[in-house]
Each structure stands twice: as structure tokens, then as C-alpha cells.
């Protein structure tokens, strides 16, 4: 496989799909490459209340599907493949798990992935009590006690959602206050099923066929403790999907891609959009805007070379 396009978009989340919408309406010969499924991370959000146009709010899975539907309506071709690198010759060569594709310009919109705790037991119990998607797995924990690790918006949203199923949700957070927005904090503090374990980090996750216990360490006192839970929902932030780009671009210290206001990276003809770019507010609305901007900048570049 060695196909040539004008534009290749990496990632089928809100940023990549918006770029694809603009590019295909501009009749650019475009390919969108997605490694998993179209829609991106927003598919995991129970409810999106801050994307304009939906005054009643909309579920993340519906919004993701609608964005995908609109983007592909104008004939945007998509390929299921995992991008493993980009090389610059006369053209850009995008190396994937399914072969190579060539293009004049590339928009990187590969988003981010949930961070892991990196503790013993986390990998071992994945799918057997350890989860990164409350929406998907909450229902398996009916009438059980579970833990949520983290203190940001996603963690607190998860905790609130999980109270529908669980008898008790313990929020384990490494600080003594939450990072989540005030609205969410108020809801969480008012919920009798949510209990907080402050200043604590997870040391390990143990169990037999499934999770039974989480061992904790208090970061202030150094003391160890443990809680008996059958599920652990991890929501400790995001890391950008940029490992395969280290040879091509200078990334910031966390791994995000620096761009200017036109979404241009340091390499001509390579753009970054959405959660993956440095300085993004990491929301659907900004991802969509970035995608549109990147597509228009790319179009200008393509017609100039």
C-alpha cells in the first residue's frame, strides 16, 4: 500500500473530524486515519453540557457519533490503522500498522489517552475491577463499594455517575482539595454516597480473580492504609499520544505539540489540532475550532506548493 493524498489527518476525534469536514468540503483529497473508532474520547462522556448548540446537553456518545456522521457526509475516506511515525521526504510519509500513506500535508489530531497509575496490580486487574471508563463499566459494580482515583473534572464526574450503581464511592485524591470545577465539587460534597480519602496515593491494587483491596499511602504522614473495594476507576489525567513523533517534532515537557495560532508546527506542512497541541483547553469546542483552523491553514499550504 502506497497511496498519495493531498492531506492526511491523524485521529478521528472531534479535532480530526472537524478538520476532515472542512477539508472534504474544500474538495481536498483527504484521508483520515483512526486507530480505534470514530468519535474520540468524548464518546466516554456521560453528558456534555458545554458544547454550543445543545441547550439541553447531549450524551458524549451521541455527540461523537453526530460529529463523525457530519464529517463523513461529504465523502471523507477513513482508514483504520495506527500511525507509528511520520517521515519527511519530498512529501510526508505516514507510517502505519497497515502500510504507508503519502501526503503533501498532515494534521495531527491524535488526542490524548488516560494516564495510568503505574502501580502493581493495575495492569493485572484491567477488566477485572480496574477501569478507565466509568460510563462503560459502572453497571458491573451494582451494590458494591468502589474507588475513584483522582480529583479533577473527570474523576468527580465519574464518582457522581458511579453513585447510581455503587453503595459507596471512595474518592482517593493526592491533595487535600479537588481540582474539579465548583459545580461538580458542590454536587460531590452533597452526595451521601461519596466519601473522600485526602492526601493519599495508591500503592498497589490486590485481589484474587477480581479486585479486593487498594493499598494507600498518605503523602503527608507517610502512613499506609487500605480500603476494601471491588472496583477501581482511574481518572488521574491525560497524556498526549505523541510518543511516535519524538524524532520529528520538538514536544513540550509533557509531550504536547507546540503550535502557533494557525496550528502550524515547526515543520512546514505539519499541523496539530485539539487536545494534542500545547496550550489547548482540552474541550470539544476547542478541538473542533482547532481542526477547522488546521484544515484551512493546510489548504493554503497545499495550494501554494
Amino acid at each position, binding site marked *: 500500500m502506497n497511496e498519495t493524498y493531498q492531506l492526511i489527518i491523524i485521529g478521528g476525534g472531534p479535532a480530526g473530524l472537524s478538520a476532515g469536514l472542512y477539508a472534504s468540503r474544500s474538495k481536498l483529497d483527504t484521508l483520515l486515519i483512526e*486507530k*480505534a*473508532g*470514530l*468519535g474520540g474520547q468524548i*464518546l*466516554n462522556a456521560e453528558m456534555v453540557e458545554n458544547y454550543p448548540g445543545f441547550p439541553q446537553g447531549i450524551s*458524549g*456518545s451521541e455527540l*461523537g*457519533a453526530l460529529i463523525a456522521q457530519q464529517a463523513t457526509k461529504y465523502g471523507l475516506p477513513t482508514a*483504520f*490503522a*495506527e500511525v507509528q511515525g511520520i517521515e519527511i521526504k519530498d512529501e510526508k510519509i505516514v507510517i502505519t*500498522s*497497515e502500510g504507508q500513506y503519502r501526503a503533501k500535508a498532515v494534521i495531527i489530531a491524535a488526542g490524548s489517552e488516560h494516564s495510568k497509575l503505574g502501580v502493581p496490580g493495575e495492569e493485572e486487574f*484491567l*477488566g*477485572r*475491577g*480496574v*477501569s*478507565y*471508563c466509568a*460510563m*462503560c*463499566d459502572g*453497571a*458491573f*459494580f451494582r451494590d458494591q463499594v468502589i474507588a475513584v482515583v483522582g480529583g479533577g473534572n473527570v474523576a468527580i464526574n465519574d464518582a457522581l455517575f458511579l453513585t447510581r450503581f455503587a453503595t459507596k464511592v471512595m474518592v482517593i485524591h493526592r491533595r487535600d482539595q479537588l481540582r474539579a470545577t465548583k459545580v461538580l465539587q458542590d454536587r460531590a460534597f452533597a452526595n451521601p454516597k461519596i466519601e473522600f480519602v485526602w492526601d493519599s496515593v495508591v500503592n498497589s491494587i490486590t485481589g484474587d*480473580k*477480581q479486585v479486593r483491596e487498594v493499598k494507600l499511602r498518605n503523602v503527608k504522614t507517610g502512613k499506609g492504609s487500605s480500603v476494601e473495594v471491588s*472496583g477501581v476507576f482511574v481518572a488521574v489525567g491525560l497524556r498526549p499520544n505523541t510518543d511516535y513523533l519524538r524524532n520529528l517534532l520538538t514536544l513540550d515537557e509533557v509531550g504536547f505539540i507546540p503550535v502557533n495560532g494557525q496550528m502550524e508546527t515547526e515543520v512546514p506542512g505539519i499541523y496539530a489540532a485539539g487536545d494534542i497541541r500545547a496550550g489547548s483547553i482540552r474541550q470539544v469546542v476547542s478541538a473542533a475550532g482547532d481542526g477547522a483552523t488546521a484544515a484551512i491553514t493546510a489548504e493554503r499550504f497545499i495550494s501554494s506548493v
Partner: protein
Amino acid sequence: MTQPLKVDDQNFKGVVIEAKTPFLVDFWAPWCAPCRAIAPAVEELAGEYAGQVGFGKVNVDENPKVATEYGVRSIPTLLLFKDGKPVKQIVGLRPKAELKKHLDDVLTGKG
């Protein structure tokens, strides 16, 4: 694309356990977005591996028995069976290339 078979609590034994070839079961539910997102890749694989590997889908809402029996507590989960036993468990929305590798490993006796 090929549609995986509908597998349920009743026919699981006959379809999956007694299958002559390796068999991949996709545990899903209608309210699970990543399950919908992984479905096209599974359908593509069902076409590409037709005759070599069987493919089926279990709706965990309607079929709690098999899900519980195999300890499925996260969806999507793909369980790959060989000779009636689960030999691979793939949890979450994973890239098609990774799914392929698991299938190839089992087919070549590596996994």
C-alpha cells in the same frame, strides 16, 4: 465487513466452546460507546479471518450469565477462545492492528 454471530447465554456452549476454530467473542452493550467504536474493526476482522477464526457478539445486558462466568467487568472485552478455553482477554478500545496480532499469535500457536 462481516457481521459476527449473535451469541447468547443459551447457545454459547454450542457456538463458542465447541467451535472447531479459534473463536473471538465481543462482549458489549448498547449504552457503551467504545463498544460501538470497536465494532467496525471487529467486523473487518471477521471478514479477513473468515474460515480461520469464528466471530461472535454477546450483549452483556441480555446475557449476564456468560459475562459473569468469564469475569467480564469491563466492556468492550474481547475474549479469544481456543479449544473451548479463553486464551486471550483484550480489554477496552484497542487498535485493529493489536487485535490482529492476538489472532495471528493464536493461529500460529504462539499465544
